[in-house]
């Protein structure tokens, strides 16, 4: 069945009306190809980030220094696998399946958040990832709970709820360490020094260098520019850092009374570009790890398919 140009125009007008009226687009609804592609790219990238993001935290599960922290960390990493599952399901409503996206990730054809290309060097990094990285993720993601695409918006509601739980746990770990020994306090400051700038980079390029933002905002996929979100994150984080007793590693960071916002120093966009293009500290490691897990699991997935096929034949045989 083909659709005439007139019909397409009608559908497009419907779509635009729905989006403009803050309505939800659902899988069965018509949508422009560009909208679908943009969503797939964005949701896939988000799903990949959840999965790759398990690695830096997974690095400390076996060495977590108390059983309580081990349980919290294991549960958090498990939640991330769960987030990956919802998000890949959301892409399935757009017509691409998980296996295809996993291949694209492994072949470096799709990206994931570049923050996960930094190493976790001490256990304080676990707290700082919760506080700063999950904190930045939440600032990015809360507006996505009102995304125009229904399945994505609903997945984000659930994910944001869990992320803020993780963020509180991260902050609580840092609180405990700051109340602990000198070595523990030093560990926290060191971790903050390493993660602060990369966390600012999580909001993406400056607005002037972010060509897709306008269209995404028109489609109500995105609702704020990168720089708006980054500013909101800085303003939110500075008082938390003060409460914690750590110094954010930016000598230019200060309150601007006039703007009623914090000024902050220049991001090292060269470092950002390096990491995005694959030359960060852990890009190769993260992808190699994911690729190895995927390849080592092939025989298991093949067995499950073969078994399911046999079972289906048996059921058929029994029914006939």
């Amino acid at each position, binding site marked *: 069945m083909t659709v005439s140009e007139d019909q397409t125009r009608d559908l497009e007008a419907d779509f635009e009306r729905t989006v403009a009226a803050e309505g939800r687009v659902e899988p069965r609804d018509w949508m422009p190809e560009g909208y679908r592609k943009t969503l797939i790219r964005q949701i896939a990238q988000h799903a990949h980030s959840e*999965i790759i993001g*398990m*690695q830096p935290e*997974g690095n400390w*599960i*076996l*060495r*977590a*220094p*108390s*059983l*309580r*922290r*081990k*349980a919290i960390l*294991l*549960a958090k*990493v*498990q939640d991330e*696998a*769960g987030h*990956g*599952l919802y998000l*890949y399901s959301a892409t399935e409503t757009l017509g691409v399946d*998980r296996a295809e996206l996993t291949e694209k990730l492994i072949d470096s054809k799709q990206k994931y958040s570049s923050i996960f290309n930094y190493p976790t060097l001490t*256990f304080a990094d676990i707290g700082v990832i919760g506080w700063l990285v999950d904190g930045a993720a939440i600032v990015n993601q809360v507006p996505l709970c009102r995304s125009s695409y229904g399945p994505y918006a609903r997945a984000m509601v659930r994910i944001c709820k869990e992320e803020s739980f993780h963020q509180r746990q991260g902050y609580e*770990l840092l609180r*405990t*360490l700051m109340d*602990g*020994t000198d*070595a*523990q306090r030093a560990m926290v400051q060191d971790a903050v020094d390493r993660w602060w700038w990369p966390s600012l980079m999580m909001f993406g390029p400056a607005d002037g260098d972010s060509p897709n933002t306008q269209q995404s905002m028109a489609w109500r996929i995105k609702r704020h520019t990168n720089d708006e979100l980054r500013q909101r994150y800085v303003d939110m984080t500075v008082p938390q850092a003060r409460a914690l007793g750590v110094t954010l590693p930016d000598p230019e960071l200060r309150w601007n009374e006039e703007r009623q916002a914090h000024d902050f120093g220049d991001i090292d966009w060269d470092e950002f570009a390096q990491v995005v293009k694959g030359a960060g500290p852990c890009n190769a490691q993260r992808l190699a*790890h*994911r690729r*190895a*897990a995927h390849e*080592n*699991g*092939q*025989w*298991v*997935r*093949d*067995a*499950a398919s*073969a*078994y*399911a096929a*046999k079972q289906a034949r048996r059921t058929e045989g029994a029914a006939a």
Partner: protein
Amino acid sequence: RDDLATYCLMLADDALVASQRLAGWTTKAPELEEEVALANTALDLLGQARVLLARAGHLGAAEPFRHGPQDAEDVLAYFRDDRAFRNVTLVETDLGDFGQTIAWLLLLASWRLALMQRLTGSRDPVLAAVAGKAVKELTYHRDYAAQWVLRLGDGTELSHARMQAGLDAVWPFVEELFLAHPVEQRLVAAGVAVDPAALRADVDAVLDQVLPAARLTRPGRPAVGLVGGRGGRDGVHTEALGAVLAVMQSLARAHPEATW
């Protein structure tokens, strides 16, 4: 009282070491659903371990190992050497590939489930309560493992071979599961503990149901021998445990005066 503390350690260490081994699968599982399921199993076992370690701590088991301000569960988990761990050696074995992991989990969960089912009738109310919760968790673990034994055993030729090899690899450690330590024997007499010998029939029943359906053969390999009559329950382990604990305890021991 000492016997009860030791018994709590035995049941706790089985769960703690098994949890640590399973947690090693994180970010390496063959599919996201397995990632979630294995982590969940590790979490359940960790939860069982924590309650039992805390109980052992209440009974004084942590004091000989205490050098800092940590909770009893952490003193026992992080500041005991492998020779003071009381787990059966099955739980400390390298889990190998996914097939071997599944064989290991089927055996471990079937056995621990049979144990916990009986332990719900313990005269010790804390143990009975722990067991009640554990039964639900272990039933899920056993069923999860059994499903995968079927899929792998009756999947492809390759998966069948690997599933059988995995079963063969863990088999020598099964016999120890049914040996009663003197501490257990005394507590069985007191109506507190479960006699491990009584669990064999339950485990066999699971295997008799699952293995033929999965086209797998019950291995004939001999059990690993004890060292001068002593095994994991006596603190005489395989060489694997030392390496597991070296990693697990490294950070806690680097900061003996810290809590987290």
